[in-house]
């Protein structure tokens, strides 16, 4: 029985990691077509770095992702903070209302965003992309941070006050340092949500503000190039580095 479970676990891992491993392997495949492996090459990487249009979409995605994640994390922090610490009237309503954008199908949000933007005569572009992405990342950022705030012992801030700290000092020396991991988590989650989004971007991007996922999606028609495998590999590598850095910091925190 145990061995069956163990094998099952291994299969799950294979299932999860096969696509990722495949991307990495094919990014070094000399052949244009993925089903034939004809040798190793770094050709696709140099192609990638010379494809200015693809790199421009990458830049758009990063800019939009960072801006949306920053705003969502900041607003989410303040929302979570006030909901957790003050007896806000209509608290239950707020909590429910925050969740709704997570439940409403993205396509509905996309359509209505486009209608709102066009009715107020707003040109689609980076700004509308950022606004659209905030709508879908804000609930996530709020929820992640609210969990951490609810877990904070309320007597910590009372203790700080008792020891002479003003509200600001209490926040800076006690509350924020304890909430920092959740702020970081909210930012990363918001960023990746924005970075990989297609539906909202379809409705809110304009000429010259195509995001990377949109570009890849549209190149389906002309055929995927191994260049995208190279890009995929770099993104996987980047993610690993981020996870490693965050992980090392967490380990330090635990070991310190």
């Amino acid at each position: 029985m145990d061995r069956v479970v163990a094998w099952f676990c291994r299969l799950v891992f294979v299932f999860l990691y096969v696509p990722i491993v495949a991307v990495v392997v094919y990014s070094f495949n000399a052949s244009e077509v993925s089903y034939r492996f004809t040798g190793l090459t770094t050709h696709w990487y140099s192609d990638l770095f010379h494809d200015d249009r693809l790199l421009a979409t990458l830049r758009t995605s990063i800019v939009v992702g960072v801006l949306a994640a920053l705003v969502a994390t900041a607003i989410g922090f303040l929302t979570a903070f006030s909901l957790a610490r003050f007896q806000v009237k209509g608290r239950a309503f707020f909590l429910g209302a925050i969740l709704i954008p997570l439940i409403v199908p993205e396509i509905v949000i996309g359509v209505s965003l486009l209608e709102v933007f066009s009715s107020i005569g707003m040109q689609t572009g980076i700004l509308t992309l950022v606004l659209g992405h905030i709508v879908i990342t804000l609930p996530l950022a709020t929820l992640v941070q609210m969990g951490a705030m609810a877990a904070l012992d309320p007597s910590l801030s009372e203790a700080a006050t008792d020891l002479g700290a003003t509200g600001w000092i209490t926040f800076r020396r006690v509350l924020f340092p304890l909430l920092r991991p959740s702020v970081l988590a909210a930012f990363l989650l918001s960023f990746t949500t924005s970075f990989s989004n297609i539906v909202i971007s379809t409705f809110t991007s304009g000429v010259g503000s195509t995001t990377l996922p949109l570009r890849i999606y549209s190149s389906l028609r002309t055929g995927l190039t191994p260049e995208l495998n190279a890009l995929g590999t770099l993104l996987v590598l980047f993610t690993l580095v981020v996870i490693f850095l965050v992980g090392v910091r967490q380990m330090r925190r635990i070991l310190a």
Partner: protein
Amino acid sequence: MTQTSAVRLRGITKSFGSNLVVEPLDLEIGRNEFFSILGPSGCGKTTLMRMITGFETPTAGSVELDGKTVDRVPTRQRDLNMLFQSYALFPHLSVYENVAFELRVRKTAKAELDRRVREALALVRLEDFPQRKPSELSGGQRQRVALARAVVGRPAVVLLDEPLGALDQKLRKEMQFELKRMQREVGITFIYVTHDQEEALTMSDRIAVMSKGRVLQVAGPTEIYDAPNSRFVASFIGSCNLIDAVMSSADTVEVAGLGPVPATVTGGFATGTQVVVAVRPERMTLTDRPTEGSFAGVISERVFLGDEWTYHVKTGGTELTVRVPSGETSAALATLPEGGQVWVSWPTAAGRVLPADDTTSPSLIGSPA
């Protein structure tokens, strides 16, 4: 009266909505006093304490610290510190930085800060690992850090909210002595909240006994024990026989089925008033033959507790509890079976006449001993 008291409460009261949690009360706590607030869970001890610290605003009444009204002074400017029930140590800061927190906030010079933090850590005997995080400490050590943090700024008053509640029995006993020693050493007024009567009796200079939002009695440990002023105080502190009785004249009490019983009457009860006679089980004497003024009864149960025997004796319509130290049990008594005939007596001074109903007991004003 030239010396002002450390804390003085005047008519202080607190309601949450329509729920009256602390009834109006006056209280004075002297300098360097170890003052306990003792009462069962939910009687309003924490609320009373939080009004002194300023975390709660009293519904009415005022708080004075060192002779000055502090009703408009925020918590952080009041010259007192609180030791929280949960310790509330800052988990991201080391032991050293936790203790240094107040001094850093008050921008104490570096050398002075270091000296005082080390002094505070030495006081609680925790000099060995200033760089550890609270999560790496045992419960008792966390308690000590919290205490060091509370006293490092030399406040006039430290309030402790059931500080030993989370510790095991053995550690509690140790910490009781430690706390008392530290309080004497640093010369700070301690206001100590507890629901443990033994803790209050061993440590305090004076005790305020609370029940359902009311302070019933404020007195020293021996007086609280020997001369409780109300039914609740008598039964909450130690164990006590509470015998229903009636005033048969201005200075005699009569118990149905027993007749007049020995008791000291203080407080003017009108003839015919329902009262209770409170007698401590260890003040009663049990004999196997009648003695002067004794009441005949039957042993309904007896329990051996090592250092003493506890007898339950049925006399008239009343069940009495009598404690007899093991060494003093006469051979005759020891051989008596359950159901055997015995006689119970107690000196007049051991019986205290108290109101049958606590709501009629007088309002109290405590002043420093």
